[in-house]
């Protein structure tokens, strides 16, 4: 026994990669396997392979409108975040103290989103604003705009200044410089920002429900599972997964360096 341990210690240098095995095992069991179960469940009805769940999703009168509402809310939220957040990131990127101010923009995110959402709802109620689509979108923008500002800020502050200077030297007006140099160079940040706002918005749980009684995709996945409709719920999760995969392929294509992924 003792010699065995000694031998193991001697071979320690070669087997250091074995340190990762417990974690790999854990992740296979508790992350990969559950996702595989979603995939299996989506194609199972009464323990037989079938597309029945897809059919009942399409035929369900409530599900399709929910999907459309989610896409609409996601779209409006993303566009608002981009329009409001781009100038913020642009201004911060020009300042030397911009990095610290950018930190101030993420600080509120550390307060639990339920507390912030309930506070926002109390504010709306005190102001006499009716809860509905408008308040939902405000809440979403409020919650997810840091996800837009951060990648944009990273990309914009990493742009090589000599491009801008070259454009200016060649006689471009400030607006032309922005349109022809800064904006195209910041596209990787825009794309990361868009996906980092859009996906969480449509899959979020509870925010829209609290701020306007509107059920989005995330809420209906939860209610399907809560009512024991695992098959249909799995199909909806699968649709969500496809969204996530597409957006990530998109992100990694656009910024090969993977710079703007660093949220924290």
């Amino acid at each position, binding site marked *: 026994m003792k010699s065995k341990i000694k031998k193991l210690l001697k071979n320690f240098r070669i087997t*250091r990669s074995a340190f990762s095995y417990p*974690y790999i095992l854990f992740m296979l069991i508790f992350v990969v396997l*559950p996702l595989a179960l979603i995939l299996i469940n989506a194609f199972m009805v009464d323990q037989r392979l079938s597309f029945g769940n897809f059919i009942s999703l399409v035929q369900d009168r409530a599900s399709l409108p929910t999907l459309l509402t989610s896409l609409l809310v996601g779209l409006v939220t993303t566009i608002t975040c981009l329009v409001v957040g781009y100038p913020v990131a642009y201004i911060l990127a020009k300042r030397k103290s911009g990095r*610290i101010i950018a930190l101030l923009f993420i600080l509120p995110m550390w*307060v639990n989103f339920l507390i912030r959402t*309930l506070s926002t709802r109390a504010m709306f109620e005190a102001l006499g604003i009716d809860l509905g689509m408008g308040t939902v979108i405000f809440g979403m923008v409020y919650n997810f705009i840091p996800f837009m500002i951060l990648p944009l800020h990273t990309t914009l502050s990493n742009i090589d200044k000599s491009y801008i200077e070259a454009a200016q030297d060649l006689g471009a007006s400030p607006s032309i410089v922005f349109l022809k140099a800064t904006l195209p160079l910041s596209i990787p940040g825009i794309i990361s920002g868009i996906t980092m706002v859009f996906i969480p918005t449509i899959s979020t*749980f509870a925010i829209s429900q609290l701020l306007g009684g509107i059920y989005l995709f995330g809420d209906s*996945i939860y209610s399907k599972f809560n009512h024991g409709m695992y098959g249909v719920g799995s199909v909806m999760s699968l649709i*969500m997964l496809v969204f996530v995969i597409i957006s990530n392929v998109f992100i990694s294509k656009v910024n090969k360096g993977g710079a703007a992924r660093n949220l924290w």
Partner: protein
Amino acid sequence: MVKKTLSNAYILIIMALLYAPIILIIVFSFANTSNFTFRHGFTLEAYRSIFNFPQTPYLLDALKNTLFIAVVSSVVSTIMGSVAAIGIYNLKQRPRRIVENINQMPIINSEIVMAVALMLFFITFKFPQGYVRLIIGHISFCTPYVVLSVMPRLIQMDPNVYEAALDLGASPVKALFKVIIPIIFPGIMSGFAMAFTLSMDDFIITQINKGTTTGIDTLSTYIYSSQHNARGLNPFWFAVFSIIIVVVLALLLIINLNKLIKRINKERKNEKSF
């Protein structure tokens, strides 16, 4: 000049909007009203009501659960994640890339999908309801962040330092504890802080996996279940939210104070050199 004022004003307005709900809740927690007015003037009544409010015992119970789950899952994920990072760093390129991709899964995937997938898994394999499910769930989304915060330290580390320790006669185990771990220690600590805050902050995975019959609630699920059908916010909650907000922000400041000071000094130096 005008441009600068305008852009400053813009930043200030957006910042004010972001902070408005948090700050207003704290300000009006001293008003003891639900409608954001100082009808009764400045008063500590809302805070006093915490001591005899009927919901306080449940809230304290939820706080205990939150801390228990956060401590257990962040300690486990810090140990497992740090050990795993050393292992992953020493894997060959191909398997390393696969493992790193698996590591990314809980981070990029939407939380609701991870949550229902875990729920399906627990039901399929008949896991006991309660803390076991919650702690496993929390470990599964905290550990990847630990790996991610330890990894850069390993990559920056000069591999020769470890070899030198071995050449000077240290055993591999000793070299691990005396060389590698001290070098990656800041990464381990920030991974731990991250895991702890993420676990404390979690709502979706807890809400979906806590089970309906166990009666286990964390702070966030308790707040949700007692408020999601309510109209208006009782002054009691103004006080509770204010306490939570102040504690969270203070902790954050303490954890990051060192980093922040370093960063500000660096920025100052940069400004001077221009």
